[in-house]
């Protein structure tokens, strides 16, 4: 007979675990993971079938009276693994709190920067400018013409709204490696 109470506990653990996992606070996410892990352990326990005797061999006991010990071994391994992962995550959460004084999952700055790029990129999408032949004029003159075009592009980009790179130059200056929390 399957234990209905244990099944209900498993369902509640999964539900609460998933709810907590979707929170933005890291500690709640960790609690969610722990609940889901335990729910999964109960789940595997059910995979072993009917309850029965402990798997200690006794010649007088018929084979079908024993409980299947394999799921218990699986659960034991899973518990050890989830224990170590929990410890590691606690370390990470503490480190995150030390660095930012916040317990939140941080957004990826580079991701946001890419997402806010305008559709139009002057370098990639502009109509190809008429290049003077490389046989005309000296290299210095062509370079000067290029710089002139570049200045004009920048000036027009500053006037036109939505040109993200110009408005948020400071974001580009920050190096990923130094991190958004360092100052």
């Amino acid at each position, binding site marked *: 007979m399957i234990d209905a109470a244990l099944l209900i506990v498993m369902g509640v653990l999964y539900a609460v675990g998933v709810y907590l996992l979707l929170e933005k606070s890291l500690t709640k996410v960790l609690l969610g993971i722990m609940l889901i892990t335990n729910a999964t352990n109960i789940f595997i326990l059910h995979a072993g079938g009917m309850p029965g005797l402990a798997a200690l061999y006794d010649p007088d006991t018929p084979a079908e009276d024993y409980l299947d010990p394999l799921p218990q071994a699986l659960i034991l391994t899973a518990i050890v693994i989830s224990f170590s992962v929990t410890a590691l995550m606690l370390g990470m959460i503490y480190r995150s709190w030390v660095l930012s004084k916040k317990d939140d999952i941080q957004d990826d700055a*580079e991701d946001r920067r890419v997402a806010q790029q305008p559709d139009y990129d002057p370098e990639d999408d502009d109509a190809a400018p008429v290049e003077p032949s490389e046989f005309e004029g000296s290299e210095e003159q062509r370079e000067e013409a290029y710089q002139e075009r570049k200045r004009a592009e920048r000036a027009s980009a500053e006037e036109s709204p939505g040109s993200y790179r110009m408005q948020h130059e400071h974001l*580009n200056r920050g190096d990923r490696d130094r991190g958004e929390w360092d100052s």
Partner: protein
Amino acid sequence: MSIFDLAPAAIILPLLTAGLNFTLYRRPTVQRLISLIAIIVVLALESTLLIASWGSGPVSISLGGWAAPFGIVLVVDQLSSLMLVVSSVVSLAVLVYATGQGLADGDDDAPISVFYPTYLVLLAGVSNAFLAGDLFNLYVGFEILLTASYVLLTMSGTAPRIRAGVTYTVVSVISSMLFLMSIGMIYAAVGTVNMADIAAKVPDLPPGTQLQLHLMLLVAFGIKAAVFPLSLWLPDSYPTAPAPVTAVFAGLLTKVGVYAIIRTETLLFPDSRVDDLLTWVAILTLVVGILGALTQGDIKRTLSFILISHIGYMIWGIALATPQGMMAVVFYVAHHIVIQTSLFMVVGLIERRGGSANMDRLAGMAKIAPILGILYFVPAMNLGGIPPFSGFIGKVGLIEASVELGTWQAYAMAGVGVFVSLLTLMTLARIWNRVFWRKPEHAEFPDPILLATDEDGNYGIRTSGESDAESRRYRGRDVKLLPASMLGSTIGLVAVGAALTLVAGPLFAFSEQAAENLSDPDVYIQEVLGDNAPGAADDAENGGQE
């Protein structure tokens, strides 16, 4: 005793060396040396396995002498031995690269005593996953490599790495939970966790149950392999790690997921087909991945998106579900591990030399470091599928297999695959133009290092501690920008990638054998179960509940 009995050493040796490494944390030189020796020995062993598995069927090794399905077995076949050798080659190159980086930078801000043992544990986990003949052992292999990867990804605990590490850890734990639940369900349904035994018993299940178990496993492995709807974690977490760590992750970890998907499709559930689903997953992974790559400004992020996109090629071959398709997949996986890792290693060098991995800040590298230009160009063309290289050969193999199958799904995937290979080339050429060919002052926000000139007007000369930006970045230390060991290991791996073309014939022949073995799961089942083959096993004491 055959050479195959030594296969468990591929797992045990790195683990033992890792333990030894922990005790030697005060002696970094000894640590480096024994780590290097361990990987070389493992590589030699795996190469012998590869040669021995030429022409043979799968070989199973019962651990502790307990016969399957009750004991745990390791199985060596062509697919797993090829994956083992390629992963060891890649990890050897990355280890030399990381050692070079550690030696050049001084060891003060990277806890190097943690790096070597963790790296070896990662390798042990990867080898375990490739050799596992038991679903729960596969789970343990995944956990070993994932736990090591959590540590490597968050090494030295800077803010961006912790942020990336949290995302990565949470997503990986969820995928592991799904995998564990699938194992629970499979055990409830068939009463065993031995893969051969599962394969023998699954056909007796009702089709709905088969489909559910199949999809559970695919979702769990799909997260690890980063196929499209489940891939969003990857570009957020990989780029922030140290260069060698990103390189080895990009090469190996997603491929372990692909390997598990191949086993699921060919061994566990060959009858319950979800090819239409996989077709759409392959197409979406290919297209969405490469579109993501096109918008990025950071080279490491660009390469991460390309990595996702190219997982689509492997799913394409798996979705074809023909021996030809599987042959192309095996070849493509081997090619992609090497090429993707070498590209990430090159980008690590570009970042070191040019001060940044962002295209807006880089320029003029062709003149500053021509060697990096060559090192970038060769694997980039390879990945883009330009003819003499193995990327082209792998894609031709996939297209041939599709045309041979001839369904509209196969043609759709082939069309999308060709289109995506063009877009890959475009993405890589965009990096090439911006980073290598324009003048430093043409960059949007050129790095001060690139603008510095010597008296002759040559760009990119760096004398340490001269400008503010540099002394901040290097904290006043005199570091070598391109140490010989980092450059040497990168050249080595790029050369291996280029040499894949030369050995393409034998490699394809080998992949064909692997595909033949994969398409006939009965051989695998017979080899593992032996006397306990279907019907003979006594199910009563496994107590399956149905």
